[in-house]
């Protein structure tokens, strides 16, 4: 083993150097977010009575439970303040850890950087080991820093560190999952996609599990994100649960090294089979579809599964609200229909954000194709710049629209069956299609950045995270209205969609067009870069 690990230390240092800004920003960002949310919570819920009221409302609202989970101790300030961070932000953290791990494994292999380094004194397992050391280390530092930030706000230290270590262990578990995914696939894009799909599945598992009555069902215990919730920081501090994600790491890491040993550098696990000697690709359009298709197909399957599950929960929403207080509230809010709608609207809005993330990833093919040198070969032919950029841009827009159509249909069919009401399909599909323009704004923003600042294309992900955070926590943070209005998602009409939404939809589409025009202008002016 020692020989195959030679050079790990060097690679760890190199990786930390490459990622020093990225990792420091994430760690500081998460710690600051946790700390500020805890102090905001102290102001919002000054006494036990207000906490109990808030916690009971959350626990009684299916959409909240599906999205964030339950508050396990209604009297605990920490459990209530951190509810949005226990599952939701943990999933975001998991995505970041997948990125870091893939970046140092499959991505480096793909770009040939590891081949360059492997010429030196570098053991076969060193790159994988270094990647895991970096992502495990980053998870741990992030967890400890966040625990410290929470304790500093005056919350109980034990609960604070249970929470922080929960983040650390979950980050490690998903780093291990990503390391395994990097062995199974042959491209960084596919490996990242696989990791994100695993996160989405574990998120849905715990959502369905948490919705079961009473409390979490076995499904929640099948999900690493569910484990993080069951640590129940500030609500009993189940330290032993931390053992589960660590055990998952202990199980996955040896398998990953075993698989790494059985394949060549750059190769996946499967054998290389010969392909067609003649191509059927007619032009850049076919090529763009070919390059984006797999990812879109995977997303489409995930969206349909998620949609049917969410839709079929529609019938349960009002049943969860059993206490006399909440029944009263329900009447005030417009009855069972309004509550069901609110739940569906929240879920569809999340799907809209996910579709935007898809569109962003798809349009960033432009940059990855350019840096890979593929664009140079294409533009050497009679293909114009505009035509090539359009191929990926329009394919991305189409993918976004398809995903939202599938969302609407699957949620609608699920809800129609649950409520025995066929008319749900139409209105839910309409609400789902209404999320497309906001997602297109994000897609077009990526095109604009590609045109003017190609080196910053990945930064658009950061912008997306900011928009999501503003939507989720803006009110909690007392963010000014104009700032929250910057997020395109803020302007998407929600279920039930009336004619009032038309103006903002048109505005969103105009914004997308302007951004796209900007992108084309920049792209037609700048040098091709590598």
């Amino acid at each position: 083993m020692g020989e195959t690990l030679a050079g790990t230390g060097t690679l760890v240092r190199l990786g930390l150097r490459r990622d020093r800004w990225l990792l420091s920003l994430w760690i500081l960002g998460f710690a600051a977010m946790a700390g500020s949310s805890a102090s905001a919570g102290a102001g919002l819920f000054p006494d036990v009575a207000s906490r109990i009221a808030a916690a009971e409302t959350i626990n009684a609202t299916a959409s909240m439970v599906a999205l964030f989970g339950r508050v396990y101790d209604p009297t605990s300030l920490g459990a209530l303040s951190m509810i949005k961070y226990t599952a939701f932000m943990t999933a975001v953290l998991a995505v970041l850890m997948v990125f870091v791990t893939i970046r140092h494994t499959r991505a480096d292999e793909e770009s040939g950087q590891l081949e360059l380094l492997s010429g030196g004194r570098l053991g076969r397992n060193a790159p994988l080991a270094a990647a895991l050391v970096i992502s495990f280390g980053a998870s741990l530092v992030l967890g400890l820093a966040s625990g410290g930030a929470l304790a500093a706000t005056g919350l109980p230290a034990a609960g604070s560190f249970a929470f922080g270590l929960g983040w650390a262990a979950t980050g490690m578990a998903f780093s291990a999952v990503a390391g395994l995914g990097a062995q199974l696939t042959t491209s960084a894009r596919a490996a990242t996609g696989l990791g994100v799909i695993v996160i989405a599945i574990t998120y849905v598992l715990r959502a369905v599990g948490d919705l079961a009555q009473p409390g979490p069902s076995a499904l929640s215990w099948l999900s690493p994100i569910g484990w993080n919730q069951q640590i129940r920081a500030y609500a009993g501090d189940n330290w032993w649960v931390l053992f589960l994600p660590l055990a998952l790491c202990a199980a996955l890491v040896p398998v990953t090294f075993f698989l790494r040993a059985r394949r060549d550098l750059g190769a996946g696990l499967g054998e290389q089979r010969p392909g067609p000697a003649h191509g059927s690709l007619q032009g850049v359009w076919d090529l763009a579809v070919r390059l984006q298709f797999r990812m879109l197909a995977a997303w489409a399957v995930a969206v349909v599964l998620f949609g049917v599950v969410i839709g079929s929960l529609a019938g349960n929403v009002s049943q969860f609200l059993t206490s006399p207080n909440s029944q009263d509230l329900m009447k005030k809010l417009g009855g069972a229909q309004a509550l069901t709608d609110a739940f569906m609207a929240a879920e569809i809005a999340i799907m809209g954000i996910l579709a935007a993330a898809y569109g962003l990833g798809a349009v960033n093919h432009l940059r990855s194709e350019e840096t890979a040198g593929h664009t140079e070969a294409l533009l050497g032919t009679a293909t114009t710049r505009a035509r090539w950029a359009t191929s990926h841009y329009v394919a991305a827009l189409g993918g976004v629209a398809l995903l939202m159509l599938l969302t609407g249909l699957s949620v609608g069919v699920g809800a129609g069956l649950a409520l025995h009401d066929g008319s749900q399909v139409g209105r839910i599909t309409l609400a789902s299609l209404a999320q497309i323009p906001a997602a297109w704004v994000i897609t077009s923003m990526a095109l604009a950045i590609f045109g003017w600042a190609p080196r910053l294309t990945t930064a658009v992900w950061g912008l997306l995270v900011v928009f999501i955070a503003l939507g989720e926590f803006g009110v909690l943070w007392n963010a000014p209205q104009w700032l929250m209005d910057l997020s395109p998602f803020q302007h998407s009409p929600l279920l039930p969609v009336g004619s009032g939404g038309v103006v903002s939809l048109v505005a969103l589409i105009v914004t997308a067009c302007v951004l796209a025009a900007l992108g084309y202008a920049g792209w037609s002016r700048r040098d091709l870069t590598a």
Partner: protein
Amino acid sequence: MTNVVEMTGVVKRFGKVTALDGLDLTVAQGEVHGFLGPNGAGKSTTLRLLLGMLRSDGGSLQVLGLDPWRNVATLHRRLAYVPGDVALWPNLTGGEVIDLLGRLQGGQDPARRDDLLKMFDLDPTKKARAYSKGNRQKVALIAALATDAEVFLLDEPTSGLDPLMEDAFRGCVRELREQGRTVLLSSHILSEAEALSDRLSIIRAGKVVETGPLQQLRHLTRTSVTADVTTVPQGLELLTGVHDVVVAGQRISAQVEPSGLAPLMQALTAAGLHTLTSQPPTLEDLFLRHYGTNTTKAPAGAATSNPGHSNHG
């Protein structure tokens, strides 16, 4: 004779690096023009400018009488390009890439494509992921050579090919010339450019320092000769065209201009020649002698020279 490529005083900067510093280059219709320079001299930058992939910061350039930045679509139908560093989609087979590039170019000759596949001994059913650098280069070469372009821009097309394939490539270039097509061929290997070109331009640190037909540049090149003889003859250094004579025991080495080769050989044969090795002149020698600088010390922030890298797989 009209000029296919006309560049005068072209400047290209990347931030603080001046890659091209007032470059003049003309390529006449129907000629094979060798574009010779060490790594980092600006060859690829020049070709990318001619393709409209980069935008010039000064001077004027025209290809087939058109501005390559503005008339990409019309121009590229008449051009074929082989990049210096060929990158392919790892999931597509070589055959798929050749056909795709051919269609984007506006059509290729299927019979010619199949001949070229045989000539270059390339398996078109392999995924590009499995190709070595040489094989990736073959894919781009075949895609370009199978089209009926008028002008070929080839950026160090042989840098990954083995000698047998290099021969096949030279045959193709000669064929193109017979058909009256124009080729601009960049290289950092003097002998290769010499073997193929009608005219040569030598670029150093972003400027063309020498340009002309091969015969005119001959005087610049010297062959390095090493011989073992029975008796060392006197006065070799007095022969015209023979320089830097060094005698070590029975071994003689010298740098010889083309005009000095015949008299030197006569003298050596008379001296009882056993073994003779001769090395074609290299670009590095030429730079050292004529520009008083090593290629690696070119100014303007050019990259270091790294000749003789190879990659097989």
